[in-house]
């Protein structure tokens, strides 16, 4: 009975981390590799409890270094595969991610960010924006980066992440934060088994009679070849621009635009509501894909609106991309909290008021 129910579409109240794990199972996850770290350990805990009753493989590795290389192996062998971690663990994975990007393997990476640098704190943060969108390891590569702001998006972006990863043969990153992982909201879960996965023909599945040998590698020793690989990657990242997504709220009549991603965007929406109650016309632009970045919408909005405030849970990272997008057309200011502190709507409002003076 319960099983039957799980197969259909369902509305539930779930924690972000658990919703993400459930979504992964429903998205036909073949394998998960991970290592415990707060505040996302519930992902693997949920999977170790549920996968044995359903389908897929879950393996607790001895470290994040091992996890990411397991992801490399499984992706290279054609599986739909993911890992998840939080900031310090994600740092350890960077070498492996660079290899995955170079070998052009699809996979889903999840970073439920916590405050850093170093061991830092387990409270929420957005301090890994640069690491995620600029390519955190060595070399020129990018991750298709999605920033959920609700528990529902923790579900939806698992599907979206796999879709983009497989369409472009790139690693996709779901960049969340500790609060999103721990909070509960209403989610609509899609039915299981609706998102089929075809084993790609480039995967190492055993060289069948008549087909060429398949090799997964990131080693291209001749510079000519390595440059060509880089050109191919860049062309791919360029092509990915059509997938850009953002949300604009009440921007049409706004005198000031708040720009924020993830949970902070929702805090900004509240701040904008409060501002409008006081007669200040504030709109919000929320980048949903962080790479590709919604440059276009920011740039065109800046033709009309001359004041922007970027709010982040870090010392100012996405603000650099906003400034590049707006390219001097408007005044772009920054407000940030760090180290696990979450900005509240009132403090953002105070900053907005000071900008409108």
């Amino acid at each position: 009975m319960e099983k039957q129910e799980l197969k259909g579409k369902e509305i539930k109240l779930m924690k972000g981390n658990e919703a993400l794990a459930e979504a992964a199972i429903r998205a036909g996850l073949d394998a998960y590799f991970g290592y415990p770290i707060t505040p996302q350990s519930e992902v693997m805990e949920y999977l170790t409890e549920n996968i044995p009753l359903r389908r897929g493989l879950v393996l607790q590795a001895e470290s994040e270094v091992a996890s990411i290389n397991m992801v490399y192996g499984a992706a290279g062998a054609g599986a739909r595969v993911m890992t998840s971690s939080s900031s310090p663990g994600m740092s350890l994975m960077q070498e492996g991610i660079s290899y995955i990007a170079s070998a052009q393997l699809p996979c889903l990476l999840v970073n439920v960010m916590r405050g850093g640098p170093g061991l830092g704190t387990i409270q929420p943060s957005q301090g890994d924006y640069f690491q995620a969108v600029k390519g955190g390891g060595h070399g020129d590569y990018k991750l298709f980066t999605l920033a959920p702001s609700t528990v529902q998006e923790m579900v939806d972006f698992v599907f979206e992440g796999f879709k983009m990863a497989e369409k472009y043969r790139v690693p996709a990153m779901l960049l969340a934060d500790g609060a999103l992982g721990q909070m509960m909201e209403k989610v609509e879960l899609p039915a299981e088994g609706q998102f089929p996965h075809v084993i790609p023909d480039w995967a190492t599945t055993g060289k069948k009679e008549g087909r060429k040998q398949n090799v997964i590698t990131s080693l291209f020793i001749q510079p000519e070849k390595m440059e060509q690989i880089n050109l191919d990657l860049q062309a791919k990242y360029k092509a990915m621009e059509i997938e850009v997504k953002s949300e604009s709220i009440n921007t049409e009549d706004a005198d000031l635009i708040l720009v924020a991603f993830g949970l902070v965007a929702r805090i900004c929406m509240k701040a904008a509501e409060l501002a409008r109650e006081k007669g200040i016309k504030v709109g919000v632009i929320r980048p949903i894909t962080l790479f590709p970045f919604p440059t276009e919408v920011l740039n065109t909005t800046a033709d009309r609106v001359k004041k922007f405030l970027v709010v982040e849970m870090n010392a100012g990272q996405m603000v650099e991309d906003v400034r590049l997008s707006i390219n001097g057309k408007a005044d772009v200011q920054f407000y940030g909290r760090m180290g696990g502190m979450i900005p509240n709507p009132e403090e953002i409002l105070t900053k907005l008021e000071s900008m409108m003076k």
Partner: protein
Amino acid sequence: MKTEEIIIAGFGGQGVLSMGQMLAYSALIDNKETSWMPSYGPEMRGGTANCVVIVSDSRISSPLVSKYDTAIILNQPSMEKFEKAVKPGGSLFYEESTIIQPPMRTDINIYRISALREAERLNKKQVANMVMLGAFLEVKPIVQFESILAALKKVLPERHHHLIPINEQALLKGKEIISEYLKEPV
């Protein structure tokens, strides 16, 4: 009701987080929008714990707010932190046995609840949080009472389902004592 923003705060182990989950589950059953945001981490071990619950008829923007329509306060440190965070005209419910310094504000509605005493009368200290929740719901029926009963099944792990009747009793007790309290001349 349009939107109700609630903070529930006390020590870890007082059932703060599960009270909030009950509200969130009931809101889900009533087909409302809801969010439940816990404090998490080592501070929960013996230290303070709190959660913010929002129940609304429309899409919830920020799941975190700094001013609340209702504060449900179960210990003194939380009183110090959150009394000032209640919106003017809002409500503050508090457990009388753990509060040394009662709230002083005059621009909010204050309800002193003896939840622990009532729970002890039911021979189950652990249901004090349900007495408190019952009292809150009598004053602010933001979710249907039947939904709260249904939510109990979701929040209590299956091995504790035999405790559902006592929890129900506690909820009803909460409703009852607040009705009497409201009759008292102020």
